[in-house]
């Protein structure tokens, strides 16, 4: 009975195929990214809810954050280049590209700190109106995530040094790159968000 009525449905679900198609650890990283995204969704929604209640101090976002955004975007390009180098087994390029990514990551953090002090010099403190508190807390938490990304880069660099990354073993580097691009995208989101909802 069922057989004649719903042949297409049966075939759809019962076709034997490999149940496993994705690299498990990469999949796990994607889930972790979803998780981090949720926490930032929590903070930015809290920001919006609190902002809608009024008593909200508007302030100009210092120009320095534009520079830091640019630096982080460029670092992502170098991260991508390192992956391309690894695919072609160009180990010198690979190590250079990872080092530049790492250095740009440090520059980004430095610029963020400068931006924080820029706000302080305008009498915009962490303790005070929630609009500034939110701004500072968001750049702080993003910075903590960037530090975790830098640690991942160090691990990748050491693996590259020990010749453990090559065209046939790219999983780790691909995961590092994915995480770094995510941190980049996360900052873009936060920056656009903060510019938009001052």
């Amino acid at each position, binding site marked *: 009975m*069922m*057989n004649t009525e719903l042949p297409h449905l*049966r075939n759809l*679900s*019962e*076709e*034997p*195929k*490999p*149940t*496993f*198609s*994705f*690299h*498990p*650890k990469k*999949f*796990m990283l994607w*889930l*972790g990214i*979803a*998780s*981090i995204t*949720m*926490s*930032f*969704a*929590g*903070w930015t929604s*809290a920001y919006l*809810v*609190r902002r809608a*209640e009024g*008593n909200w101090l508007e302030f100009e976002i210092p120009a320095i954050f534009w520079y830091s955004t640019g630096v982080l975007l460029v670092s992502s390009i170098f991260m991508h280049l390192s992956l391309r180098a690894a695919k072609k087994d160009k180990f010198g390029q690979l190590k250079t590209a990872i080092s530049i990514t790492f250095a740009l990551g440090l520059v980004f953090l430095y610029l963020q700190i400068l931006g924080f002090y820029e706000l302080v010099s305008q009498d915009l403190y*962490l*303790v005070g*109106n*929630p609009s500034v*508190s*939110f701004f500072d*807390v968001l750049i702080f*938490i993003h910075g903590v995530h960037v530090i975790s990304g830098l640690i991942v880069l160090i691990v990748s660099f050491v693996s590259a040094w020990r010749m453990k990354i090559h065209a046939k073993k790219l*999983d780790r580097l691909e995961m590092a790159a994915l995480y770094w691009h995510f941190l980049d995208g996360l900052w873009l989101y936060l920056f656009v968000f903060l510019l938009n909802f001052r």
Partner: protein
Amino acid sequence: MATAATTHDAHAHHEHDHEHEHHEQNFIQKYVFSEDHKMIAKQYLITGIIWAFIGGLLSILFRLQLGFPDLKLEGLRWLLGNWISAEGKLEPEFYLALVTMHGTIMVFFVLTAGLSGTFSNFLIPLQIGARDMASGFLNMLSYWFFLVASVIMLSSLFLSTGPASGGWVIYPPLSALPQASPGSGMGMTLWLVAMALFIVSQLMGGLNYVTTIINLRTRGMSFSKLPLTIWSFFFTAVLGILSFPVLFSAALLLIFDRSFGTSFYISEIYIGGEALPQQGGSAILFQHLFWFLGHPEVYIVLLPALGITSEVIATNARKPIFGYRAMIGSMLGITLLAFIVWAHHMFVTGMNPFLGSVFMFLTLIIAVPSAVKGFNYITTLWRGNIIFTPAMLFSIGLVSLFVAGGITGIILGNAALDIQLHDTYFVVAHFHLVMGSASFFGLMAGVYHWFPKMFGRMMNPTLGYIHFWISFIGVFCVFLPMHYIGIAGFPRRYYSFSTYDLTNSFADMNMFISAAAIVTFAAQALFAWNFFYSIFKGKKSVQNPWHSNTLEWTAPIKPGHGNWEGPIPAVYRWPYDYSKPGAVEDYIPQTVPFSATPESNLPEETEQIALEKDIDELHTEQRIVSAKSGGH
């Protein structure tokens, strides 16, 4: 069966080489820093049991105060020290701390970590046919973060100022201002640190569960052949991955308020006539963030229990689960709805009534998937050849608690009714039945059912029956009268009700509840004795003691590291072929191909025999993927 056996043999030597890579493990690798999912599950279970006794004991202490307000507690001074006042009574501050810690411990440390941590870890690899979790290392870290969180939370009980005491929901300003109560100082700080570590632990666990279920199923184990336990663990983990980070967000902002003086949640507060510097914060904001986790958390606690119940009821009713796909659909529905109903905890915060009615509407929709599950359990039992094992009794008990507690959920979900009943014992009765007791019964069902697989021995069934009946009757004696007290207007978290004539007239009912709680708690000692005694001295288990279909019973009685000695078995059919017409026995395990059971096959199943060869050919590919994970 014959076909399957031949193909397995062909691959046997491959797998054999592979197994030799495992070295003998020393004591620390095996029992302490274990990366084996079965050992981690047992670590979670035993830690959870210890926590359950601590959490239960705390509730008995405050039930003594509520049921017997004139009782002299001098006899407990050795345990509680200065928390017993000079008059021999419980200090009111400590009463609040007891309530807070009871909630925190039971919700997070027992029913989240103890339930998901135990059964997701134990059953996922065994029931989907995997050697271990996707990342054994992360899994080990998950347990150790949980244990460190446990130690910190436990140590807060021994502070001279007491543990956190602003309720398990830690609403600011009680939780944000150290001046608010003794427990709001160091106790609250330790609470936040412990919970931050706990969240990290749960996230690491959740990532592993989802990844393992999606990527490491054995050949033939399509999503439509997964046992309902696995489906429930899957949805639970997804809920955790998406909602725990938001609790982390809320907690972090609270930490900033407490330690750095920001005002996310604090606004215009005067203490002793002096204004605090903070202004412009919103305490309601915290409630939104908290309940965005808090509500999914209810289902994080409940769904694994429902999954375990599905499996135990189908096995012991000797019938296929009624409405397999409807069960998955209703769990999916509950998972989605869980994220969009949080504000029903906040009807009295002065929210816009229109918003309230939206959340009320969404909340009441949850009754639909919940009722689907309730009916499916009952229809599975209907005309089954029921075998009343202790696990089965606890599962049926869960169904009764789920229905009895769920019905009051419909009452509380109404914004108009909730305004009357909010923060009364009616709410306490509701969530203790539908979430607390139901999940606890699911946990017990799981322990009794899978104990033979965990330890290779059986628990004593007679003690199990006694444990069940006292718990079952006791739980209803505790929580049914609470509905009346709640309707009468008793607010929760109050230290004493002996001041007013109205509340005095219910003193005997409170006494009855307390007496029932003490008996129920005492009966858990039977379980503890049965559990620990049976680990060492229980009757030896046979291969498949409950005649169950799922994969874990094809593994050796005491599975070693890697679970199956030979190749991992392939799966050909769904897990609920119980009492199939024409079959020789009343169960057909998932590993039996249709070609071996011509006598019971339905016409469309006979057609699938042609596909069995394809399933077997997936074997090589499975080994490659398996090698990419968990060090196998």
